[in-house]
């Protein structure tokens, strides 16, 4: 295989190891999100229009706090991996692509931190 062929051009951008890791991490997070998302929907339904005290005491229970933290980490990582593919496929200008990819990375990390921070604040602040 020539070193200037199309395959080596792909390799220069994303290594094979990275591509395989991206693929498997996307599937692993997807599988983990099946029960997590079902839990989230059922939970939100039970808390819909609930008063402040009941929501706070619900979030403060250790199991719910932990589930929310796991959900935020897995969900935002899954979102980052998915958005990355969409951006790589549909944005064809190099500079824009790199900028949007970077923004997506920071935004999803910020999202996870905000979610975990909010839940911990509620959980630790509750009497």
């Amino acid at each position, binding site marked *: 295989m020539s070193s200037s062929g199309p395959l080596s051009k792909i390799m220069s951008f994303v290594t094979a190891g990275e591509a395989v890791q991206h693929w498997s991490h996307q*599937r692993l997070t997807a599988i983990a999100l099946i029960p997590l998302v079902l839990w989230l929907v059922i939970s939100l339904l039970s808390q819909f229009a609930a008063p402040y005290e009941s929501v706070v005491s619900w979030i403060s229970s250790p199991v719910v706090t932990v589930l929310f933290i796991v959900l935020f980490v897995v969900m935002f990582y899954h979102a980052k991996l998915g958005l990355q593919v969409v951006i790589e496929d549909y944005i064809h200008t190099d500079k824009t692509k790199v900028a949007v990819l970077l923004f997506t990375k920071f935004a999803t990390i910020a*999202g996870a931190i905000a979610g975990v921070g909010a839940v911990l604040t509620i959980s630790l602040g509750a009497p």
Partner: protein
Amino acid sequence: MADNPLSPHLQVYQPQLTSVLSITHRATGVFLSFGTVLLLFWLLAAAAGPATYETAQRILSWPVSILAMMGWSFALFYHLCNGVRHLFWDAGMGFELSAAYRSGYTVVGVSFVLTSITWLYVFLFGGSS
């Protein structure tokens, strides 16, 4: 980077169920990513205290918010069901064209049913909880 292989341009293809469901999976994924802001907004408001939480609840009860949440819930159920469909494909199952169509129709049907059940529950019991 400019020489990377590009995805085919969608507009050169005649749309068919399988391709429309495929692009919808991506579209709902992107939409859900933005939708997480709504969940963060609600939790951050609860973390900020009772007054902020009251304001957030009022904003979330606006018709436009309800509409956004309906769209978000459909996107969530669709992405969930179609994601499971993709996982079966990854396991090497359901590749035949007839099976792909059957699972495709099932995904759309189940997503609508789950969204309807969810909002029927909200409108019937939401206020009383």
